[in-house]
């Protein structure tokens, strides 16, 4: 059995380590995802982990085992964030799974939710509007406005419907982003294990890029040049609009697909704009981070 340790912090970088631990894609032999020591997960961590489970299920592979975080506070938060509700269908969950807390949970604007069709996007946006409006007040983001945030969420979710060729996952939380930002932030994560940017754009773009064509070129085509696989003149503007918003909001957009990640990097972050040679993971994993407009906390 291959044991893949889930890092202490399961965020975008933490999930890279998980993808690396798989060694190959698809992973060979039985798999144990060991999250016993994990202390924290971001929306990206939840959505990407469920995408991993979904990908293995869609490939018809044996259900991997998933060892639950041992810290009660952590596992309780994961339950409230909706992770275990969906994980049970994809993993053999090992360990004690607490009940989700009832009522509004601190910071969870949208528990991890499956997106498969247009109606799911309507449902997600309907559910996010009230909590987003409240959190935007707390985070002094009134000038941005919760409606624009919901529009960005809608466009991000539509990437699954329009391009993934399968379903995916979305989650939205606010949290204190101490490690990189030093203040609170709201994060949208939208992940799928579908065909990814390279395959989606291959027919339309590969020839233009010649031997440069690959995951990073596909991300560059989509995010920098607003290219879409559809020929309609209005296509490709969803990501472009999100990018425009995040530049205004000093927010961060990052998208991982295959072996590459592209990011619109704000001044508070030091991620590279483009990373190549990451451990392969199918589909597309998108993250949007909007920082609070407030002084950094100590």
């Amino acid at each position: 059995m291959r044991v893949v340790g889930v890092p202490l912090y399961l965020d975008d970088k933490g999930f890279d380590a998980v993808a690396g631990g798989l060694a190959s894609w698809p992973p060979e032999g039985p798999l144990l995802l060991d999250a016993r020591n994990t202390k924290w997960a971001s929306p990206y961590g939840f959505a990407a982990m469920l995408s991993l489970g979904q990908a293995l299920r869609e490939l018809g592979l044996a259900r991997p085992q998933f060892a639950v975080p041992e810290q009660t506070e952590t596992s309780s938060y994961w339950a409230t964030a909706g992770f275990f509700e969906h994980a049970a269908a994809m993993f053999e969950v090992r360990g004690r799974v607490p009940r989700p807390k009832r009522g509004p949970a601190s910071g969870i604007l949208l528990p991890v939710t499956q997106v498969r069709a247009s109606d799911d996007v309507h449902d997600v946006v309907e559910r996010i509007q009230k909590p987003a409006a409240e959190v935007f007040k707390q985070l002094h983001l009134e000038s941005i406005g919760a409606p624009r945030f919901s529009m960005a969420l809608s466009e991000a979710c539509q990437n699954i419907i329009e391009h993934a060729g399968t379903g995916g996952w979305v989650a939205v939380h606010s949290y204190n982003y101490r490690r990189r930002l030093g203040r609170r932030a709201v994060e949208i994560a939208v992940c799928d294990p579908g065909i990814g940017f390279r395959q989606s754009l291959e027919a339309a773009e590969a020839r233009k890029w010649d031997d440069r064509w690959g995951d990073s070129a596909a991300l560059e085509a989509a995010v920098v040049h607003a290219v879409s696989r559809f020929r309609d003149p209005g296509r490709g503007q969803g990501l472009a609009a999100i990018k425009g918003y995040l530049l205004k909001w000093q927010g961060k957009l990052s998208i991982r697909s295959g072996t590459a990640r592209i990011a619109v990097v704000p001044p508070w972050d030091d991620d590279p704009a483009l990373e190549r040679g990451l451990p392969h993971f199918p589909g597309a994993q998108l993250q949007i981070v909007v920082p609070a407009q407030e002084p950094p906390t100590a």
Partner: protein
Amino acid sequence: MILTLRVDDFLRGAVAIPTRDLLTRPTGAAVRGRIVSAIAAAEQPTACLDFGAVGLIDFSCADEVVAKLLRVLATGRYVVLRGLDDTHAEAIHYVLARQELSVVVVPRDGGWDVLGYATPDMRAVLEVVYAEGPGDTDRVARRLDWTPERAADALQTLALRRLVLAAGGTFAPLPVP
């Protein structure tokens, strides 16, 4: 003279769950299809799409409902938008400007405006036509102290974009509610 269509009416039935939000391309395509049918069946050449009871509009849906509607509008048909809030206007302006499309809108506080592609010359001439009513090229040229050729070029552009009505050398504002 003008057909008013409440956009939220077309949203009902286009989405399985009750909603006021115009989101996603499939929803937008369904709503546009119904609007196109309503316009085709109407006697009035100008349709006013009322967004007053619509919640959110995302960019993809704005593209499907407004940009694609402008592209498929039959000859002799005109569209005006009203009831837009700031984020509606932002999304619609964004998708139209990227495709060099334009539409006349009636802001919530009255008057008129244009969203999408509009050069300074187009705006200047629209100001004259919408403030002073129907007139010819010479009137616009005199009013703006332009050559008749420049005024004619701008008026022709506005007519081709269906931002003004053109008939027999006279250019008139679209009827706005």
